[in-house]
């Protein structure tokens, strides 16, 4: 009871709280108080940048020149922006899918493989279907989404019928996907490029026909906004709304937070989680289609074409704390890092160092909310009475009565 006095008392009475009480409660609320996280993030980013600078100078580079190269490669010109944004679209699609599956509690971490499967199905549709222009693009995207969605759905089935851990199965399926794509582009009757003359065949497909590629919007000199980016942003907004404003989103969120309560409230937890997995896989598949059909790559199916977009997209969702809208700026940041990183590597800084810098920045963004949450939890554990605040002295008296009765 002594501890009860240390707790901000929620105001009494059902009529409505006064402003002080509300303010106090907001401060107690772990979900709010974002300024703390923001300040901590600024600090950690500064530390990460300092560490990066140190690393670059230790390995014989110049931090300022490197920073300049990063900037030049990603943001300095419309052409640089074009490159950055081409990476942003698939990153964002993967991230939105990761948000959906993480919110449902069925964690999908196999996006890297699902991106490849999406590209595989997309390539098949683009190369094998004889359809007129726009219809062909749509069928490439649809085939990629459905194929990768079904691929991720396999993990849901494994969980449903054999209790296989979803995290483990989605991740291991990635390696299977890599082998499948490799098989497809090494097998002439599947997707390997056709023989022209007497050259040796590479493990890759024919280039997608012009009509199956995703075109860019508008004709700005140098700056191109690819249709894929528009698609990704629309997807992010739609899923953000669906999660926050629909019955489906409500149930999904509830399932993630408490499967028992969700089942109790009438949710078919397994079916909903399986659907979330399939959606997440489908969006990763769409990302794969973008890698195939937008000007980011060679427009061919190639074994390494996923470019770690699947893993990086997961990180985007992690930094955006599973919020699809927040994922948009985070994906832009990651796209910029990616484009800048490639440019930096081209100037002679070792590529592994670029990866280290990227990883440091990710850590800087991810760590503060987690650490602050942990500190809060520990503080709460130290004050057990915080969950049962006394409303007024009269109740404290009753508490004492209860004690004597018990």
């Amino acid at each position, binding site marked *: *009871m002594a501890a009860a006095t240390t707790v901000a008392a929620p105001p009494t009475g059902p009529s409505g709280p006064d402003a002080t009480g509300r303010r106090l409660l907001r401060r107690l609320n772990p979900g709010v108080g974002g300024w703390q996280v923001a300040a901590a993030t600024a600090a950690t980013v500064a530390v990460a940048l300092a560490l990066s600078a140190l690393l670059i100078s230790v390995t014989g580079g110049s931090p300022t020149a490197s920073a300049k190269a990063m900037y030049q490669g990603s943001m300095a010109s419309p052409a640089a922006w074009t490159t950055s944004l081409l990476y942003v679209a698939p990153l964002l699609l993967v991230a939105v899918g990761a948000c959906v599956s993480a919110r449902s509690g069925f964690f999908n971490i196999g996006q890297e493989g699902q991106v490849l499967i999406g590209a595989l199905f997309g390539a098949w549709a683009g190369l094998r279907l004889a359809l007129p222009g726009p219809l062909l693009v749509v069928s490439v995207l649809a085939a990629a989404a459905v194929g990768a969605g079904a691929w991720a759905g396999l993990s849901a089935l494994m969980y449903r019928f054999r209790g296989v851990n979803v995290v483990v199965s989605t991740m291991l399926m990635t390696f299977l996907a890599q082998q499948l794509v490799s098989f497809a582009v090494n097998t002439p009757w599947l997707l390997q490029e056709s023989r022209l003359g007497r050259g040796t065949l590479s493990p890759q497909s024919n280039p997608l026909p012009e009509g199956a590629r995703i075109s860019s919007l508008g004709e700005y000199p140098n700056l191109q906004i690819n249709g894929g980016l528009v698609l990704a942003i629309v997807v992010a907004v739609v899923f953000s709304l669906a999660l926050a404003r629909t*019955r489906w989103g409500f149930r999904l969120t509830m399932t993630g937070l*408490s499967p028992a309560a969700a089942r109790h409230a009438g949710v078919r937890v397994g079916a909903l989680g399986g659907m979330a997995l399939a959606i997440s896989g489908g969006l990763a598949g769409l990302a794969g289609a973008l890698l195939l059909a937008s000007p980011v790559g060679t427009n061919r199916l190639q074994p390494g074409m996923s470019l770690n977009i699947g893993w990086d997209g997961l990180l985007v969702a992690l930094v955006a704390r599973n919020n699809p809208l927040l994922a948009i700026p985070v994906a832009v940041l990651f796209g910029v890092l990616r484009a800048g990183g490639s440019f930096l590597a081209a100037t002679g800084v070792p590529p592994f160092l670029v990866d280290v810098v990227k990883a440091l920045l990710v850590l800087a963004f991810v760590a503060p909310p987690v650490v602050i949450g942990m500190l809060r939890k520990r503080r709460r554990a130290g004050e057990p009475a915080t969950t049962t605040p006394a409303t007024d002295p009269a109740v404290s008296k009753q508490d004492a009565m209860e004690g004597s009765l018990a």
Partner: protein
Amino acid sequence: MNVDDQLTPALTLRGVSKRYGPVVACDAVDLAVRPGEIHGLLGENGAGKSTLMKILLGLVHRDTGTILRGTEPIEIDSPQVAADLGLGMVHQHFSLIEPLTVWENVILGDTGRVDRAAACAQVEQVAQRYGLPIDPLARVDRLSAGERQRVELIKCLRRDPSVLILDEPTSVLTQAESAELFTVLRRVVQAENRAVILISHKLAEIMAATDRVTVLRRGAVAFHGTTADTTAQELARQMVGRDVSLRAEGAALGLLPVEPQSPAGAPPSTDPAGAAPAADPTTPAALRLRGVTLRVGGLPVLDDLHLDVAPGEIVGLYGVEGNGQATLGELLSGLLVPDEGAVEVGGRPVELTRPGTLHEAGLGIVPEDRHHSGVVLDMSVAENLVMKSLAGVCTRGVLSRRRMHRIARRQMAEFNIVAPSPDTPLRSLSGGNQQRVVLARELSAGPKALVAAQPTHGLDVGAIEDMYVRLRQAAAEGVAVLLISTELEEVMALADRIAVISSGRIVGVLPTAEATAERLGMLVGGVAH
């Protein structure tokens, strides 16, 4: 008693007390356990048995009192010290590591080199000495409950304890396994002059297996004596308490929540309100459990359970914790599906394999562990209030925040839920207010029947009173209320009829007016009435 005192006890407790804040868990407990005897320790939940044993094992430090081993006073600071002093315990919930083998479990915690052959030999030697046949190489997860208990016993006995404590040892055993266990205990006691403390709430067991018995009630010793000189009836009365005091307490708790028609403090069984159809056989039951059976690992947790609750009636389901109440609660929450039997709400059987059907059929539930299935702590008050009836706040699948808030505000006012706003996360509410959220949601759905499982656990007095008023009001409005509780006072104060559950069966149903402590105690203890 005089004859008893001639022997030096193996272990003596004098005036041992332990308080947790204002709660007295043990109140000046005296206990003497002699070598060569099985000493029964009887008491309800919360009577102080476990606290006392935790003190003996060094898990909890006593506030006052002395503990003697033989004639020398001892200090038990840690479980290691307790083990060195020769105090061994077999816990109710086994502390075995399932993927390991028997011998590995037995030597767990030893220091030095692991010697498999020696360990196996020791297991076999102890097993043979006490008649506990077990294969030391078997993996524990392949063993039955009875065999696991043997492993626990071997773990204890190989350290040659002078006092062996068993906490509810038969709760997971079959009849035959229990009989076998008591034979072993008898051997331990007689042949080797050790002392055994047997904690139990099963009267038959205490009567059959112990030499002397101590009854704890509300932390204090209510009775102690030679088992042969007492009767099961006497023990039952001592365990549960005298009738008069029970009634008085029940009335005291029920004093503040006054139903308009009911005189203050009167037990509801004498309630003159028109809505007391307890005895009316023509009213169809709003909630009916028909032969509900649920087995876990072959043992029935719920065993052919039959129970009817009529509209407007409060039925109290009373019993010692761990007799199937938690399972029944989960089943009625839609989280478990019974192996056999049916649940009928409003006269219709409910399809239990699909989630949400119980709610649709009109069954509300205040679950025992509200944090598990009752609420989602990280969602807002409003979201928790509407989560079971989303159809009311959705138009073609789109959620209306405005409608959700309107419903939440209304229910918050109606049920006195104290929260700054409907958007406050439920986590930041007090336990009483969280419980009000659950109750508001369940009652606002207009249920035919309401199940309240331990609805007042962990609440302060104000919230308890509030809960009682709501439950009575619900019954007065024609809702069938099933109150699952281990608190006799609560059941006596609220229920029209009391059904007693023991080992997953209803062992008796009686009107509250006829419920005496002795009859209830006998039923709870598993002795036929």
